[in-house]
């Protein structure tokens, strides 16, 4: 049970798994470094930021949605 095909499989496992581990290890280090740099020099207020997206919906959608909702509620009441 060997031959070129199995050898290719072995190579793929070796280099593939190697790449995955090396790459993600690098990413661990890079992420840790990034977080350190950001939290030291470019901190932001996570609470305030976390709330922000819910109000930054583009006005168009709510405008329309608002209208649909009002209609829907009106229809609902009529029933």
């Amino acid at each position, binding site marked *: 049970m060997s031959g070129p095909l199995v050898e290719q499989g072995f190579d793929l496992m070796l280099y593939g798994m190697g790449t995955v*581990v090396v790459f993600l290890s690098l990413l*661990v280090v890079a992420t840790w470094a990034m977080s350190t740099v950001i939290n030291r020099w470019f901190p932001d207020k996570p*609470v305030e930021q976390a709330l922000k997206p819910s109000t930054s*919906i*583009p006005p168009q959608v709510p405008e329309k949605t608002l209208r649909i909702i009002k209609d829907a509620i009106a229809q609902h009441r009529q029933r």
Partner: protein
Amino acid sequence: MEQLVALWTSSGIAQLSVGQFSMMLVGLGLLYLAIRKGFEPLLLVPIAVGTLLVNIPGAGLDAAPIYDAAGHMTSPGGMMYYIYEIGIASGMFPLIIFMGVGAMTDFGPLLANPKTLLLGAAAQFGIFATVLGAVSFSALGIFDFSIQDASSIGIIGGADGPTAIFVTSKLSPEILGAVAVAAYSYMALVPIIQPPIMRALTSPEERAIKMEQLRPVSKTEKIVFPLLLLLLVALFLPSAAPLIGMFIFGNLMRESGVVERLSFTAQNSLINIVTIFLGLGVGSKMSADKFLNWETLGILGLGAVAFCIGTASGVILAKIMNKYSSTPINPLIGSAGVSAVPMAARVSNKIGMEANPHNHLLMHAMGPNVAGVIGSAIAAGVMITMVGNL
């Protein structure tokens, strides 16, 4: 009378082969699993319908267009042919879905505890071990898998539908149907496949380990992280750039907070539209001649093995890390490294609560869970580089 004969010979009964009939049963079986058993219905319902349609004899839904000698089209071909060629052979549909998945992904837990990325790496061992298994079967003459087929089978263990479809459409499109069905089915089976392995490899004390609460993560970190990831991919593994690139594109739309319209559409209309057509397109590879053979059994079996090995590898690495880490790591979160977001993380949480009802592992398991998505995309990139041009 002639017409009656024409109608009859064009009818399904006269043409239906045993294979096509069997594939219709397969399609109905997939529908049963999707509708009654809740097996990843978003993909399996369209795949199942695609399977039914493509096996209707004479319907020509996957027929290629026909051109005469002068290059003029004499027959436009069927809808499923276009869906496959435009959306899947080009890689666009899985990439668009991956973008939508990115827009749904929160890297917060991963950023709070980046070493869980390693668990996402470990779980990819299932992929490569299975590749080796597949080629060994070939060498033994049991199956006839090329190294490309073996890679496509291994990627089932990545537990990521779009990644599996992307890789298989590039490396061995003829087994795309079986691979996609296996990938989505096993993702649905995560709550059944993983717990026994997780329990076998851990002691009750280990399962009861409580982890420290995750620190809050700033918005800037969430915006910079996808760019960092893309940069590393650009530098070290460009062949993973399509998958990772679209994934971080979606995530950046989400986290930047300035393109909510686009993020909303990527997570809703767009991903839904593409899901419908991706499923039909995958179904177009579920014809009898491509699915009903001995190799399909091998694909299904090896795919399950890949899932199991991946689960075990994740748990084992988590045990090792727990030993050497300054903060405690519950080994149960290792199994979430196979991805299958968010199912695998929920399984970790559930098994953890069995051991200790106050042990909430969900957020801790989300780190390896999304790490597993990255890990599989990296593995996909390696495979496409190494065996795509052979």
